[in-house]
């Protein structure tokens, strides 16, 4: 997603001369081309995230469209108050770019894992939270920022993220994308869990369970129309995210359900409320949290089969507990 991001940003900067890229001393080599093409519009502000966000706010209030780039936990948590006050409160159209969502920087350890960023960014007024599901969405998300009037938190994976989309879908901030229709339940994913959701749906299809797969790339604001549609068609919703189960996509959907469709059941797949004291790559760490297609499929199946029988409805009765 990192390369897709800079590809999108280069295209955007070509079109819109207000685009300025700031980095907190991260992104070795990947910004060289951007810096060469747009002199004066790329600045390494050094290892100082709070300063970077304040500068970004100043640039935005001075008429520019700055992108402030660093590793996700650094660019959200270290400088949280700058984001809240300078950017959100002052309505400065800054895009904060966090690379390394979830366990992307696995072996670097919990200091580099981003598992609370969505929850924290989502709680800020005037903030939009976008977590592209794959490199295709990442590039489209960058382009979509052009017509978005306010602040955005853009949460990327890292390098080598799996591709979920075959083509280029229509991408609009706040509008979820259904990648696969399904009858029995909805797997609603955000960020790099999107390909995992597709793989899970594939496994479940082999067990005669048909899952709708949704990319909820915008966690704030949620696509309420799509959630309504899911609730109308499915009794069980699943959220998938490489983020704490507290306050992320699962939390956002739970809040929405409680206020709108309380009878629907929701199960949230996400990271546990803990720091990991083992080392490991992203794939290993996902395994420890049950965030693999196999484990998600297993749990999904168990929950679908535990649903009480219903005389009518969209869900396939063959899959119910009485079978």
């Amino acid at each position, binding site marked *: 997603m990192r390369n897709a991001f800079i590809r999108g940003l280069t295209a955007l900067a070509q079109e819109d001369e207000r685009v300025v890229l700031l980095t907190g001393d991260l992104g070795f080599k990947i910004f060289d081309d951007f810096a060469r093409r747009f002199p004066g519009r790329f600045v390494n502000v050094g290892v100082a995230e709070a300063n970077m966000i304040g500068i970004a706010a100043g640039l935005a209030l001075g*008429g520019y469209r700055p992108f402030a780039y660093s590793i996700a936990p650094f660019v959200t948590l270290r400088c949280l108050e700058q984001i809240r*006050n300078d950017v959100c409160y002052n309505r400065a159209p800054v895009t904060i770019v966090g690379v390394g969502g979830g366990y992307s920087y696995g072996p670097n350890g919990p200091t580099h894992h981003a598992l609370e960023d969505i929850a924290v960014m989502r709680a800020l007024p005037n903030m939009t939270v976008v977590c592209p599901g794959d490199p295709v969405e990442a590039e489209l998300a960058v382009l979509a920022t052009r017509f978005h009037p306010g602040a955005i938190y853009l949460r990327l994976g890292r390098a080598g993220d799996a591709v979920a989309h075959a083509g280029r879908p229509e991408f609009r901030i706040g509008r979820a994308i259904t990648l696969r229709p399904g009858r029995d339940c909805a797997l609603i994913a955000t960020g790099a869990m999107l390909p995992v959701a597709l793989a899970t749906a594939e496994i479940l299809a082999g067990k005669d369970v048909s899952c709708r797969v949704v990319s909820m790339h915008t966690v704030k604001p949620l696509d309420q129309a799509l959630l309504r549609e899911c609730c109308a068609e499915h009794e069980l919703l699943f959220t998938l995210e490489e983020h704490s189960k507290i306050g992320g996509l699962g939390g956002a959907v739970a809040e929405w359900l409680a206020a709108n469709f309380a009878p629907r059941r929701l199960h949230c797949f996400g990271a546990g409320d803990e720091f990991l004291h083992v080392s490991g790559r992203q794939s290993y760490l996902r395994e420890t949290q049950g965030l693999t297609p196999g484990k998600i499929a297993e749990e999904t199946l168990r929950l679908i089969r535990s649903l009480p029988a219903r005389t009518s409805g969209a869900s396939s009765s063959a899959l119910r507990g009485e079978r």
Partner: protein
Amino acid sequence: MIESARAVRRAVLKMAYAGRTPHVGSALSCVDLLVALYFAVLRLDPARPDDANRDRLILSKGHGCMALYAVLAERGFFPKSLLNEYAQDGGRLAEHPGPRCMPGVELATGSLGHGLSVGVGLAMAARLSRRQSRVFVLLSDGECNEGSVWEAAMFAPSQRLDNLVAIVDYNKWSAMGRTEVMLEPLAQKWRAFGWLTVEIDGHDLKAITDVLSFIPSEPGRPTAIIAHTVKGKGVSFMENNLEWHYRPPDEDDLEKALREIGCRRTGSVGDMGSEG
């Protein structure tokens, strides 16, 4: 300008009384700096507060905003009667300035250590778009304890932002005690970070105007002004007395304070519009 400073002090005292708010001392210590800036230094037009080419002042010490509101009203950005809204339920003027809460208010502040970085960004934006506008950031001395101030202080000279000025309202007091213990040698610190640094008497309107009239003062270098000030300046019993960081003046205090700054109290206490 002396008369303007007097009018602003009068408005500050009345606002603190009517709003029952603290931070009178902090506001009084930066009145002269703000009056000199708004009446003799800043290139701006109160009738066109959004002009892209305007100079900008950021009050990074947001808790001193009574002085900012009063100066803006005195300079004609908005009617003085609006000062009556200060700290009132439903009013537009809060105890820390909101975003563009009034014409002329450039940035919402209140938490310390934010203004200088934003000022750096604004100065960069001015340079990128080849505008002549300059950015002045007024900080408190206690604020210089914040690490983010020094992140910005370290960065600005590397960008050769000579259109940027940091002014430290050095009244020697923070919320719990004296600031010199941690800050000194303050001017040397700014110099060491690469700023053209000048120390002045922050209540000498002529000295402030003189030094700020030549910005950029050196090509490629931002300027730091260490303005030596007195917390509570102008009211003897508020000067250098930390109590007035917290206590709003009561009716008696107000009466005495207004007499000291050379104003008679006329009309209702909340009447900011009438002349003193």
